[in-house]
């Protein structure tokens, strides 16, 4: 997107304005009525969206910040309490644990699924016959609902009759009470998150691979470079911008994990899998502490904003 493209009409308008009124008064007047009509049309077309986004996004964001400084339980008016919610939140062991869990979940799901995604993308980029089938298989968990997927995993993780324990048994490994055991619940949730998240990352990598200049590989082949060498010396460096993009959107996605927690563990056992989003949900809709929930979501937002700003800075330095 270039700047000239972004202001095609504005520059035309500027050109029209430069015609002095004394030399071409009639022409100018004609343009301005047409222009007026266009502007009105523009406003008409955008107004519904402006109202919608204003009402359902802009006002809520402002309200979240306001409510985070209040004690508010829906039934009485919000009471301004300064930073009490924040103080309480950071002294709350469960919320601190939810931050830890969220970070830990992100720390594992993002790199694992990224590593798998890049390998699959590279393998898929070689014009195999079954390419379309493979791509569909890896992408399918991304289009299906997380709730439905979590239901299936709930059954796979079932300690008594589940598929996972049956498979471990055939391998001679001990089965686990996956979602019930505080030690295994978070790893189990991480497994589902990593499994589901491969698809989108793979797609972005495939798109990026298509943009790599093939002559680089041809030159490397002439020099006698092996496939592995080519992967690390050409593919990996050329994929750097894509990797960065994937990394950021994956972190933002992972920080907002909710549906599978709700279905798989309800935050338990012993808060082993509670996440920041889950605490927001619990405060707001189970304890009806809207102010506290807002403060918690402000902290979540701060984390995500931090990630976004860091990413901006790094991309700018790369340019």
């Amino acid at each position, binding site marked *: 997107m270039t700047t000239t493209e972004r202001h095609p009409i504005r520059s035309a308008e500027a050109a029209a304005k430069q015609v002095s009124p004394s030399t071409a008064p009639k022409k100018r007047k004609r343009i301005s009525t047409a222009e007026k009509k266009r502007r009105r049309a523009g406003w008409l077309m955008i107004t*519904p969206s*402006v109202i919608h986004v204003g009402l*359902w996004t802009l006002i809520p964001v402002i309200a979240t910040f306001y409510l985070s400084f209040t004690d508010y339980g829906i039934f009485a008016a919000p009471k301004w309490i300064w930073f009490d919610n924040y103080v309480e939140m950071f002294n709350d062991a469960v919320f601190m644990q939810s931050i830890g869990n969220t970070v830990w979940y992100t720390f594992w799901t993002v790199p694992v699924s990224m590593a798998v995604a890049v390998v699959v993308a590279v393998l898929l980029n*070689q014009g195999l016959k079954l390419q379309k089938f493979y791509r569909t298989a890896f992408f399918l968990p991304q289009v299906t609902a997380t709730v439905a997927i979590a*239901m299936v995993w709930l*059954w796979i993780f079932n300690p008594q009759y589940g598929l996972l324990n049956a498979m471990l048994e055939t391998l001679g490994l001990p089965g686990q009470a996956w979602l019930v055991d505080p030690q295994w619940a978070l790893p189990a949730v991480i497994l589902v998150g990593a499994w589901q998240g491969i698809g989108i990352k793979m797609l972005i990598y495939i798109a990026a691979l298509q943009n790599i200049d093939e002559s680089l590989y041809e030159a490397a082949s002439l020099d006698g470079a092996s496939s592995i060498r080519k992967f690390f010396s050409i593919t990996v460096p050329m994929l750097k911008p894509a990797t960065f993009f994937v990394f950021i959107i994956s972190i933002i996605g992972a920080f907002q994990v909710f549906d599978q927690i*709700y279905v798989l563990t309800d935050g338990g056992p012993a808060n082993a899998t509670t996440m920041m989003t889950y605490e927001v949900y619990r405060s707001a809709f189970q304890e009806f502490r809207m102010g506290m*929930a807002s403060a918690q979501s*402000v902290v979540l937002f701060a984390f995500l904003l931090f990630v976004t700003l860091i990413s901006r800075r790094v991309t700018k330095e790369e340019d």
Partner: protein
Amino acid sequence: MTLPTIKALAISEQVTVVPRKRWFHHAKGRQAALINVALILGSITMLVPFLWMVLTSLKSPAELAQFPPTFLPQEWMFSNYAATLDAAPFGLYFRNSFVIATTHTLITVVLGSMAGYALARIYFKGREAIFLAFIAMLMIPTYTKIVPQFLLVKFMPLFGGNDILGQGGSGWLDTWWALIIPGGLSASAIFLFRQFYLSLPKDLEEAARIDGLGEFRIFSQIYTPLIKPAIATVGLLTFQESWNNFLWPLLVTTSSDLRVIQVGLAVFQQLDNTQWQYLMAGTTMATVPMVVLFIFAQKYFIQGFTNAGIK
């Protein structure tokens, strides 16, 4: 200039053929075989949960209580599906989800394309500011707005027994309004539409304007037909997101009549988590529409997911 020539002009500028790149042309047989084996194993890992879901939905309760589990059902219980529909009104949930997802798609395509067009092709005062605001709204995570959104719904004035100040009743809670209006449009859809309209050449509007067409006709008869693939992409993404949405319908509805399929599944599981064959049958029913839609419209989904990226 007649419309067909305008179209031809636009298309000729639009189409670029990207050749598929491969990082080796002469894959040796053994290497290709190895890659295929790895990818088949990977695909199996991705598909087994889906297969397991369908197989479980066709087993008898007695068979499900066996350990180690059987792979194929000993007896194919297709009657499980009828029994599932008796156990919970999944048909109704399905219809609700369908109505909501379709409405969201329609609203997004109509309003989103208009807004995208205005942002891309019409200059008016304040346009840049509105665009920047939309971009900022793109970056707002769901959880930063969910509490006030819920409050807005609850205190919606003059609905559900509320007075003009929004007090006294339940507002939009447990109504179709709450399910349809707040999620009807997203800043990301507007942004995507803007990008698509921006990619079209300017000659078209100039030609159309000389022909005396008004802005709405230029929008609806000239530019929008040219971005049909984009409409398919945004529409499918919206439908998918709406069909898969869970938290919002969970929060704003309580009655069974308004339950969507994802919430229906979650409630069904909490009510009776021992009847796995029914739960898996319900899950299969919730999953099949998206899988079918994806398989038939893969191209558009993939375009959307790679373009949108930022979700």
